[in-house]
C-alpha cells in the first residue's frame, strides 16, 4: 500500500499524519446516525416521487383514455371510408362513351335543327 517507507525516516510519520488527517470517524453511534440521515433523504425522495406520480396519474389516465377513444374513432372512420370507396368502385356504371364517338351524331342533330330553323316556310297568313 504505502510506499512512504522508501523515503527518509521522517516520511513514515507523514504517512501516519495523512492517515490521522483523513481518518474516518470511529464509533457505531456516528455511523448509525449517518445511515439514518442517508435513509431519511432517500425516503424523502421516494415520497416526493410517489406524491408527484399520484398527482399526475389521474389526469394522465383520463388523457390516455381520451387519446385511445379518439384514435379508435379515427381508425373506424378511415376504415369506413376505404370500404365505401371500394364498394363505389365496384358498383359504379360502366364509363360513358367518349366525346369523339358522339360528336358526329351531335353534329348531325345540330345541323338538322339549323336546317329546320332556316328553311323557308310556306306563308300561312295568306290562307286566312
Amino acid at each position: 500500500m504505502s510506499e512512504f517507507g522508501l523515503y527518509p525516516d521522517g516520511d513514515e510519520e507523514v504517512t501516519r499524519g495523512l492517515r490521522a488527517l483523513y481518518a474516518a470517524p470511529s464509533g457505531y453511534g456516528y455511523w448509525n446516525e449517518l445511515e439514518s440521515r442517508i435513509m431519511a433523504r432517500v425516503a424523502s425522495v421516494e415520497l416526493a416521487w410517489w406524491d408527484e406520480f399520484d398527482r399526475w396519474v389521474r389526469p394522465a389516465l383520463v388523457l390516455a383514455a381520451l387519446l385511445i377513444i379518439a384514435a379508435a374513432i379515427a381508425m373506424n372512420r378511415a376504415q369506413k371510408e376505404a370500404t365505401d370507396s371500394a364498394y363505389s368502385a365496384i358498383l359504379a356504371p360502366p364509363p360513358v362513351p367518349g366525346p369523339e364517338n358522339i360528336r358526329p351524331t351531335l353534329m348531325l342533330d345540330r345541323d338538322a335543327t339549323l336546317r329546320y330553323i332556316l328553311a323557308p316556310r310556306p306563308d300561312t297568313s295568306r290562307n286566312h
Partner: protein
Amino acid sequence: METCTVGISVATANELPRDVPLSDDGIKENERALVIAAQRGDGSAFSALVRAHQRRAYAVCRAIVFTHEDAEDAVQEGFLHAFKALDRFLPDQPFGAWLYRIMANASLDLVRRRKVRDADELPETLAIPFRDPGEADELRRRLAEALAKIPERQRSVIVLHDVEGFTHGEIGTMLGIPEGTARSDLHHARAALRRLLDDMRSDL
C-alpha cells in the same frame, strides 16, 4: 413481499454486521441479492447496502473534498444518486466500484460548487483543525498546509492510495482518469509533499 423471491428477507438485511466491509465471495453474493432486492423497492435492503459501504464511501469523499462536513454531505448526495440510478445498475457488476465512482462524482461536484462560493477560504479551512501545539499536531498542521498547496487531484490520489489502499486502476475509475495518470499523479504528489515538508522543516 418481493424480498422472498430473491432469498433474503428484511430480517436478513437488518442482521448484516454493522461496519464490516463486504469482501468475501459469500458476502458478495449476499450483496448481489441485496442489490436485486433494493432494485425491487426493498428499503431495508438498500439500508443494508448503505451500512456496508458508508465507511469506504466516506473515505472516498473525504479524499476529494476539503472538510469532514463536506465529506458527509457528499456521502449523502452520493447515496441519493445511487438510489435514483439503482435500476440502471447491473447486479453482476461490482457494486462497490460503481458506488465509489458515484461518490467521487458527488464529491467533485461539491468541490466545484464550493470553489465558486468561497475559493479563498480553502487553505485556511484545511489548516483550522490542526493548530494544537503538540509535535504530532504540528506535523499534521504542516502536512495540511502542504496538502493544500498541491493540485487537488494529486491530493485525492495520494489519500486514496496511501490512506485507503485503493489501486491505481480503482482510483483512475473513480476519478475518471487513466490508470497511468493516477500513477503519475501519485508520484508527483509524493514528490511535492516531500519538497514542501522539507522546506517547512528547514524554516523551523
